[in-house]
């Protein structure tokens, strides 16, 4: 499943602001787009669209989303950007539980490096 990486470059702080303004609705859209980018970077479907959508409204699914993003998605992004591989899974799960928008900011920041 080799496909071009979709364009999804945002200011991380914008993710926070839009998430707050729309009371979490923007995060559902963000989850879908981030999943598409991570899947394209990994060249396989690691986060399915249903998981991305339900992560926006169901806490256990949200934690699973960040588990997959940290464990399988972001390492592939780091591979492509030439960064030293680091495991952010635990941090993302904790932030995904307490402040999903902040976890989204971290993932967005890493995704942005793909377009530099």
């Amino acid at each position, binding site marked *: 499943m080799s496909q071009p990486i979709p364009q999804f470059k945002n200011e991380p702080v914008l993710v926070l602001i839009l998430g*707050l303004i729309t*009371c*979490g*609705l923007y995060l*559902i859209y963000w989850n*879908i787009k981030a999943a598409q980018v991570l899947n394209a970077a990994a060249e396989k479907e690691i986060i*399915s*669209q*249903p998981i991305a*959508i*339900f992560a*926006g*409204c*169901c*806490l*256990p*699914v949200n*934690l*699973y989303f960040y*588990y997959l993003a940290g464990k399988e998605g972001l390492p592939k992004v780091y591979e492509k950007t030439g960064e030293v591989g680091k495991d952010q899974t635990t941090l993302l799960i904790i932030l995904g*539980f*307490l*402040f*999903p928008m902040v976890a989204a900011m971290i993932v967005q920041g890493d995704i942005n490096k793909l377009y530099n």
Partner: protein
Amino acid sequence: MISTNYITNPKRFRKILGIAGALLTLAFPFYVMLQSANRSIETEQSLCPFKLLTGFPCPGCGITKSLIFFYKGDVEKSLYYHLFGPLTFVFCLTAIIILSIELVTEKDYFQKVLYSKKIAYSLGIILAIYHLTRLIYFVSSNNMDDILRQSMWK
């Protein structure tokens, strides 16, 4: 020797995580219901971090209360707190049963539904419309003081 096959096999591990998540989703409201047997759950402070921070509901707000009323057999109140509450119960129960069968038989029965984009987008759109409607209703029926009272700031 204990088998660690579930760790080395990512697909199997994901199924175990799915069962654990579904169990957690169903067990937590049940625990809250038992803990609050003698007091009204309706006036209890929401545990949602977003609601605590802003006073506004997130798309998943109310599912716990919805499940509690569903357990009590009050479907009307369950739907009032969240339209997706009873659906969550059915989905989680189905997921636990089918994923357990899949683990035992080592076959896939649930993947088509779980990975169906059509179902996911349809439910996503319904959820977005529902949340938007709920937000409009919430803002029109609560003043600033009520909203602040539902947050951790007052």
